[in-house]
């Protein structure tokens, strides 16, 4: 998409088409000949995996829409109809529901990869921001998709999440009524969620196009974080990364298939197989696993509006990240202190995920009652959530800005090729585990 093109039309037709619509040239330049750093490890295959996930969700979603009925009286039954009566309906629906989980699993790996290797830093800020937009669209799409089967968790999840908007002072309740199209989550809500759930994957696909465009202007970051200096540092995308991505996609699909065929409901909530009943709330409302950390942050704050602000702020941190991290060194391979805080951050997000799935008053260590400080029980999920929330925000607002100014990073290699060819003492631990290093 940028820079010099090496494409040469092979025959008369290609030459004719190239002068009218250079689409083969575009494909050749961005998927075949594109110069890619030669040291990308398997963490860099998740972009390709995510593209496959989006494709699967769109194809299975279009099929499901052929059999689904977006009406409060029929939605639940139509999903059961898909599961029991439609030919291979069970397969398509399980691919779609587990596909959402796989999509988020892959996007989290992809995001942590970007955080670790500093892929958000100049000149890739716009690339990172577009990724954040995709992630937000994914959250909204997944939330609305989860409402469609109209089970108990669908319904009450929708009630809780739409009520969050009501926390906004003055205009909140009017916006909530507008979103509902009534005085509660009801048929109009279900219908519009279905319409938007169908639309948004195509919006995601559009932003993915921009994301890849923004990737192909500066080119890939790489595990050293050092800029590409010469042609020696790169290999053409095809066959080197088509094959590497292809292998990673195959392994990922194996895991995905294991869920679909052997434990399709492992990641879902059994309560959603109870038809929605507006008069009875399930004892324990939880979102799907991939939104649990945000749910934990919401509940960690005792005030309703502040809880919503913190939850939104958790995502806003990602948008601000390129300007919060003050370090000039991209890759955490050369930032030993930052690396330590990064791994704590990963663990903290997992802790938040755990907390989001628990009742707030649950004990962390069963039977222990001695952690009572001024009427608060520190041995409770809500207090663990608070500590984890504090670290989550501190990582972005304190640790990364301060660390970039105070730490002393390790020396970076002159070029991508240097550590690969010399296996210098500076090569980080774990480098040997990356098979691409051997060549």
């Amino acid at each position, binding site marked *: 998409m940028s820079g010099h093109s090496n494409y040469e039309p092979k025959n008369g037709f290609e030459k004719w088409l190239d*002068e009218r619509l250079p689409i083969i040239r575009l494909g050749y330049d961005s998927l075949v000949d594109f110069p890619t750093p030669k040291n990308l490890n398997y963490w860099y295959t998740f972009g390709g995996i995510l593209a496959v996930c989006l494709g699967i969700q769109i194809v299975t979603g279009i099929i499901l829409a052929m059999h689904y009925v977006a009406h409060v009286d029929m939605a639940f039954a139509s999903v059961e109809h898909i599961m029991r009566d439609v030919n291979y309906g069970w397969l398509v629906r399980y691919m779609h529901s587990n596909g959402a989980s796989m999509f988020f699993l892959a996007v989290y790996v992809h995001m942590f990869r970007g955080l670790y290797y500093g892929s958000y830093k100049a000149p890739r800020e716009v690339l990172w921001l577009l990724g954040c937009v995709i992630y937000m669209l994914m959250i909204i799409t997944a939330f609305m998709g989860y409402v469609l089967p109209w089970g108990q968790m669908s319904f*009450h999840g929708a*009630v*809780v999440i*739409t*009520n*969050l908007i009501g926390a906004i002072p003055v205009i909140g309740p009017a916006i909530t*009524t*507008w*979103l*509902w*199209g*009534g*005085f*509660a*989550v*009801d048929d*109009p809500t279900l219908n*519009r969620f279905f319409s938007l759930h169908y639309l948004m994957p195509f919006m995601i696909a559009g932003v993915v196009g921009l994301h890849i465009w923004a990737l192909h202007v500066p080119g890939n970051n790489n595990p050293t974080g050092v800029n590409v200096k010469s042609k020696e540092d790169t290999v053409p995308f095809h066959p080197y990364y088509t094959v590497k991505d292809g292998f990673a996609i195959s392994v990922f699909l194996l895991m995905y298939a294991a869920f679909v065929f052997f434990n399709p409901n492992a990641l879902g909530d059994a309560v959603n197989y109870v038809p929605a009943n*507006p*008069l*009875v*709330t*399930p*004892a*324990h*409302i939880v979102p799907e696993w991939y939104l649990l950390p945000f749910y934990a942050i919401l*509940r960690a704050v*005792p*005030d*309703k509006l502040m*809880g919503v602000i913190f939850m939104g702020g958790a995502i806003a941190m990602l948008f601000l990240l390129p300007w919060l991290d003050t370090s000039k060194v991209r890759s955490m391979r050369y930032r030993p202190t930052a690396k330590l805080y990064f791994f704590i951050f990963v663990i903290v997000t997992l802790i938040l995920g755990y907390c989001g799935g628990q009742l*707030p*008053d649950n004990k962390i260590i069963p039977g222990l009652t001695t952690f009572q400080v001024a009427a608060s029980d520190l041995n409770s999920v809500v207090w663990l959530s608070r500590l984890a929330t504090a670290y989550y925000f501190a990582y972005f607002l304190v640790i990364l800005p301060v660390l970039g100014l105070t730490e002393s990073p390790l020396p970076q290699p002159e070029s991508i090729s240097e550590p690969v060819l010399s296996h210098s003492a500076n090569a980080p631990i774990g480098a040997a585990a990356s098979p691409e290093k051997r060549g």
Partner: protein
Amino acid sequence: MFSPQLKGSFKVASTVVGATPEHHTGGEDPNRRDFIHIAATVAAVGAAGGLAWPFIDQMNPAADTLALASVEFDLSKVETGQQVVIKWRGKPLFIRHRSGKEIASAIKDNHADLRDPQTDEERHKAGKAEWLILIGTCTHLGCVPTFGGGDYGGWFCPCHGSHYDTSGRIRKGPAPKNLAVPEYTFLSDSKVKVG
């Protein structure tokens, strides 16, 4: 990116546009062309703005949703100490027949430390202290509180642990407000119209 032929044709096009003289000469004397540009832009923005509202407002409650907004209920079905839940505007509606003890405990707490201070008299119709009619959604995030639970014997919300007293006032937990009192009137001693 563009082939030389294309570049050439762009040049030709720009000469054609450039052929209208004195277009960019001096801003102080708006000529007819500027007027047309401004008028066309204003018309287009106006049209888009005019359409924006119908496109937004279509999501607000439709006329038939609004028409279903009131419901009548026969109170003789509810025994003292019981609660009946009916559906009103898609939400649960609590109709609670309070016992003397429950009313007394609600009045006793009128001047307790309340988050959303209200006396018990403000929460029922005059002379009808035994009938408490409330919208049954927790003011935190809209779950349905369970009858008789919690530290104050009113309701307890299982989602995030809000406690309401026998007047439906928030006493403990994350909810910011008391359970809402809907608009309602007594049609007779045993009949009530909500909405």
